[in-house]
């Protein structure tokens, strides 16, 4: 029987921050889920088939993403693990994935571990080159590219999901510092 005397309230790391800096729009994405999908030893082929079947996208190579009609974005981050990035309003996001992939994968909810910041606009390249060591030029970092990197001593996953638009994922605990690094860069280059 649920104990409903007390109600927990969810809060996002940046309280839904959103600000238009003119050439760059910065928004915290609060309705997204991240679930790691790791490959059990020797089950690569089986898992990739199950992922394709249930999530509708193929297993991404490292540094790339694949998308599915079911709105799952799969991020290739290391040899035996990917992240599924998708809309999810709350709760344990790994449950749904686990239900589909069953024993063919080791899934872990990472949604609350990461702050997710979308930065977009024509000024974003100038701003990010102040903090991001990765070459983000259009030729080198096409839409759909994903990379693990660090910005101002913070571990960050950077995903280019559309032209002139990036998603930055950083640790929840230092979300304010990541936002600060981004906004200072924008102000410094505006």
């Amino acid at each position, binding site marked *: *029987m*649920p*104990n*409903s*005397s*007390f*109600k*927990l*309230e*969810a*809060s*996002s790391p940046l309280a839904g921050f959103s600000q238009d800096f003119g050439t760059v729009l910065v928004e915290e994405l609060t309705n997204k889920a991240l679930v*790691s999908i*790791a*490959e*059990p*030893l*020797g089950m690569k082929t089986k898992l990739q088939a199950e992922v394709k079947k249930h999530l509708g996208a193929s297993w991404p190579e490292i540094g790339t993403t694949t998308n599915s009609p079911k709105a799952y974005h799969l991020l290739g981050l290391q040899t*035996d*693990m990917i992240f599924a990035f998708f809309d999810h309003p*709350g*709760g*344990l996001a790994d449950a749904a994935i686990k239900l589909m992939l069953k024993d063919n994968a*080791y899934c*872990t*909810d*990472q*949604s*609350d*571990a*990461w702050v997710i910041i979308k930065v977009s606009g024509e000024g974003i390249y100038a701003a990010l*080159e*102040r*903090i*991001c*060591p*990765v*070459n983000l*030029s259009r*030729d*080198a970092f096409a839409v759909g590219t994903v990379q693990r990197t660090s910005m*101002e*001593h*913070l571990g960050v996953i950077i995903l280019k999901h559309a032209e002139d638009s990036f998603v930055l994922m950083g*640790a*929840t*605990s*230092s979300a*304010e*510092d*990541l936002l*600060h*690094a981004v906004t*200072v*860069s924008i*102000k*410094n280059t505006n």
Partner: protein
Amino acid sequence: MKQEFRIAESKVEKEPILHFSFNGKTYAGHKGDTLASALLANGVKMVGRSFKYHRPRGIFSCGSEEPNALVTLKTGQDVEPNTRATVIELYDGLEAHSQNHMGSLKYDLLAFNDILSPFLSAGFYYKTFMWPAAFWEKLYEPIIRRAAGLGALSGKEDPETYDKGFLHCDLLVIGSGSSGLMSALTAGRAGASVILADEDFLLGGRLHMEQMEIDGSSSSAWADKAIAELSSMPNVRIMPRTTIYGSYDHGIFGALERKTDHLKSSDGKPRQVLWRVYSKRSVLAAGATERSIAFGNNDRPGIMMAGAVRAYANRFGVGTGKDIAVFTNNDDGWHTARDLAAKGVNVKAIIDSRSHVNITAPEGVQTHLGTNVINTKGRHALSSITLSNGETLDVDCLAVSGGWSSNVHLTCHQRGKPQWNEQIASFVPGGELPVGMSVAGAANGSMTLASALQTGRDTTIEVLKDLGIKAIKKALPKVEDEASETSVFFHVESGKNRAWIDLQNDVTAKDVKQSHLEGYRSVEHLKRYTTLGMATDQGKTSNMLGLAVMADASGKTIPQTGTTMFRPPYTPVPIGALAGRSRGKEFRPTRKTPSHKWAKANGAEFVEAGNWLRAQWYTKPGESHWRESTDREALATRKSVGICDVTTLGKIDVQGKDAAEFLNKVYANAFGKLGVGKVRYGLMLREDGIVMDDGTAARMSDTHFVVTTTTANAVNVYRHMEFCRQCLWPQMDVSLISTTEQWAQFAVAGPNARKLLQKIVDKEHDISNDAFPFMACGEISVCGGTPARLFRISFSGELAYEIAVPTRYGNSMMSILIKAGEKFDAVPYGTEALGVMRIEKGHAAGNELCGTTTAQDLGLGRMVSKKKDSIGNTLSEREYLTRKDGLNLVGFKPVDESKSLQAGAHFITKESEPTMANDEGWMTSVCYSPNLGYSIGLGFINNGSNRIGETVTAADPLRGNTLDVEIVSAHFIDPEGERLRA
């Protein structure tokens, strides 16, 4: 404010007029001027005093190689000393002051140092001021520092901001002179991504400083056109005011871009940006630097580099004197005479050390071949020169050219050794160049315009080919090669007159010879002994002279003598730029716990634990000392219930069919048979048998464990486990991922912990003692369905749980736990109370797991299972580590309970001397126990567990707190563990 030395059309803009001040006096200049050109236009010749002898010094060059004209910019907190007037871009309102003088610049009281010069030669401070020794630090050194020095810092925080950044390109072109522009054009036209960087604010290098023709127009106009074409290319990034100061591994370069130094105010933007440039290839087109000739009294204001004199006339429209002479050993000096004469400046004579030349002087200019300048006169500025033929010429400017040295610096930053080229009397790049680097133009010894353009193009075509980019080969611009014959001639014997080698450090030819006489044979020793080539100019105009004089003294050739090693930075880089944003609170990121906001709103004082900010204690109204708060929190927790955010402890989800076996191997104790729903304390050893970390592992399912680590070792343990997984046992089916930030975790401790939790845990989860005993764990839900994890573990020794909810609920969870606990007077507690309770319970923490202690030391020797193998197991059995009388972790209390213990005190037997030989161990952790009413501590002492009841001395001589302590059990509270099982 008449600019009486402004002579002709140039690259400076006539309107508007910019006003600036030097030593409080206002002058006029123009956009496009440097501070140096503007001062010269106003007839200001003397701009500073020399480093050691306080001799009058003027502007010597027109670029970053300047040794003399160091000034202090701005005032107050903004002050910036030791900036080179030759590279300071003039702006309206610029304030500059001369430096290194006592009294006015003109009448410097410290000029008497020059009279003492016979006693102040190279290395004098190694030989004098030796007695009495105590006087050195208190008297001699302060006096010497006051008398010999550069400008002074404000001593206040730099008010400017700085930034850093990262750039990427196919080709980095360093220098925008003729070869650099040609290189950038070739690569840009081919579609390569190009960065063209130049330290100057006006791109084009010497093309603006010469009167030469390219494709039928002036070299300056050709440069402007080339820049315009490059600016139209989206694949080319042009970076003026940017110095490539260092060449590092893998084609990475350091670059300093001066963003706002040419503006009166930075307007809140970073003053400078320090870039890390990742290049696939680079073309060094840094040109060459003119060097001087050493002759008697060659340091007076008005004695300048000939190329600079020409540049001031051509680029800045400034005549550097009314009557100018040229002293040269090469054809380039003659070009200066030619250009000056063309501008209507009176050139009195050309003095050439060579007996024969193939170049003609402008009409009306006397020439003295096979002749040298041997002396000069002029108190505050040059008034006359004396020639070796006995003639004296009254001149106010002497343009000196000792030839040009290729700017090889960046080719040497990875220990490349330049090679001597006799034909041009210069070192050129040699040996192995930095990865991906090619060199073009004068930097590579191509000293004429035509050859610079050609090598700029051809080198780049090769580079593009290497990159797989097809070059568009266009015809080279049409130019005629200028006369460029030179000779190897550096030093005029000048008798008693001092011939200056290094103007910045007041090093003379005599100093170099003396250094050799005193046995300094290596050129590196010469540099250290005489200070030749040190400081802001790094000897750009002087190193060659010094080498030549040393070679002469030692009877060696210049290539046999070699050069000193060039190291980054090429020109000075402010410390602020190196720091970037990493200042104050931005030095490192801050990690905040999920309940940070609640804690802040409820009186928490925070402590830094690594990067984390943790609540240290919560101050209640009326509490004025941290001990009051901490004591209250510890007492309330033991009496009823307390809540602490423990999210910072590392959490690692371990999944896989081999997860249990994997933990069996990384932990010293056994995990294979741990049942689902159970937690076990785990001890992790390093390979050498020393304790690495401790924590818990909770088995959530057959294939899923949740491992916790200490806060400090969260990353280390995760890294270690990943190493084990990937490298040691890749055949195991194990997957790891950090969930430290995914779950907000709270310790709920105290006799009423269960009752409190029962108010929020959903009813279908039975957490009674029978259903959920000590060391149980499970996945539950709280507050009407929110997923949670519950662990019945205790750091405080009380009935305790740790409950975890997704981090998004962390702040709310803290609030709800307190609210649900109102009936029990629940309190939040911070790290201080947490520490008190763990010491009372005798639990080890970071102070005890200090990287030198073993499981046996900690009293946990039996945890190292001998029924299985694990990391560190074998080496933990080493004889010394298992000795019977080794260290044991035990408790301590003061014999006089009114006294306070101090961590760090060392134990000795009573009546012993506090010496290393008598050292028996040390106090690791102490606290005041509010439950016991006196100070208690944990510590390691030899054979401690067999010495319970013995009194020893805790020696603390440094802090004067030596006192007698009694060895007691480490378990001060509930030694039988009844509370935590309640």
